């Protein structure tokens, strides 16, 4: 039951982002949270479901399902290492994920969509081209600008949630206690 709820969290958070008008996606929040709570299989399943349901709104999300899988695996390693124990460890881990996510999404964005996945990324890619970067470099530049801060904020948000879990709920998810080094 965690999988649909976590996937729905990823898709519904855009409403909160709209309210504060920040250039963030937070579309991997559910994947990272589900991984920290239920392990890699739950996390990967959440990522796949998130991409599938998101594709019903905008089909261009589907090819990026590979990024969701990478995010879940990275979050699993971060949870095992206890990197969700504080913002000081979570935010740098999120920056690391931002780089990995950009490296993963760049070839998909370049080969499948010619770097036109979303308006924001297309514009930053155009900026990279204007700065003299080669096409693939400009595409990475656009993806990097989109992912770097987004994943750090996502990791910080998941850390807040894990630390804010009521004891009774946290007790049902032993991996969550390990992720925040409370067990």
């Amino acid at each position, binding site marked *: 039951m965690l999988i649909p709820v976590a996937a729905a969290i990823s898709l519904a958070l855009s*409403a909160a982002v709209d309210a504060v008008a*920040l250039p963030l996606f937070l579309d991997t929040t559910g994947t990272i949270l589900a991984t920290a709570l239920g392990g890699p299989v739950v996390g990967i399943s959440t990522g796949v479901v998130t991409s599938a349901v998101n594709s019903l709104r905008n089909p261009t999300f589907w090819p990026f399902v590979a990024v969701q899988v990478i995010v879940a695996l990275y979050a699993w390693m971060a949870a095992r290492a206890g990197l969700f124990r504080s913002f000081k460890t979570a935010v740098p881990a999120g920056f690391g994920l931002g780089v990995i996510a950009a490296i993963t999404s760049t070839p998909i964005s370049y080969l499948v969509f010619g770097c*036109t996945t979303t308006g924001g990324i297309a514009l930053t890619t155009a900026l990279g081209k204007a700065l003299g970067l080669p096409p693939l470099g400009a595409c990475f530049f656009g993806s990097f600008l989109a992912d770097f801060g987004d994943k750090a904020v996502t990791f910080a948000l998941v850390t807040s949630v894990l630390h804010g879990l009521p004891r009774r709920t946290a007790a049902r998810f032993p991996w969550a206690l390990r992720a925040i080094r409370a067990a």
Partner: protein
Amino acid sequence: MGAARHPRGLTRLHPFTLLSIAGALPALAWIVPSPSGGLSTAAVALGLAISARAFRTAIFTAAPFWLFLLLLHDVPTTIAIGFRITTMVASFVWVVAALPPPRLVEAMVAAGWSASAAYVFAATLSAVPVLRARAGRIADAQRCRGLSPRGGPVQRLRALRALAVPLILSALHEVDERALALETRRLVPGARRTPLSPPSDHAVERVMRWALAAACVAALAWRLR
């Protein structure tokens, strides 16, 4: 999940056939050389979208990609990638319009998929609008308590945390309640369910699905030779 409308025309096809068509068209658009390949598949996909009264949605979804492609690429590349993206968008928009989720769930259960696996998609679809509405209520409540979503980036990030954390915690709180509700309805791993009205899956359609897959493989082999 709501009652499905009585299917008409192409929508009468088995859900797996509809998904096969929606998957094969973008695959062929990428495999067959441009622009003729992409133009043909885009024409078919847009025709399907018209048949499901989803033409406008397909066009409005695909149009921004053409603009951004023109911004980033020359005209031949824009046309080549644009037709492929249009095929992909129109195929998905068509299948979403033509295939009600309950019908897909019935087909998955009838094909032997776990009922809980089929339920995951329907549950996510139904949970998103509920959580979005709740996000709006949380935003209103936090504003009443003096939260300002304006200001510098740090202030906005604090506001985001004040909105997102209660939303996520409340959603997680419901996991137990939903799990209990599902268990009482025998939606547990390994349980078999009998679909009430499974969509008919004729031999012709099964052959058609295999033919679509074979066409994609043949086109790929021809392209790679």
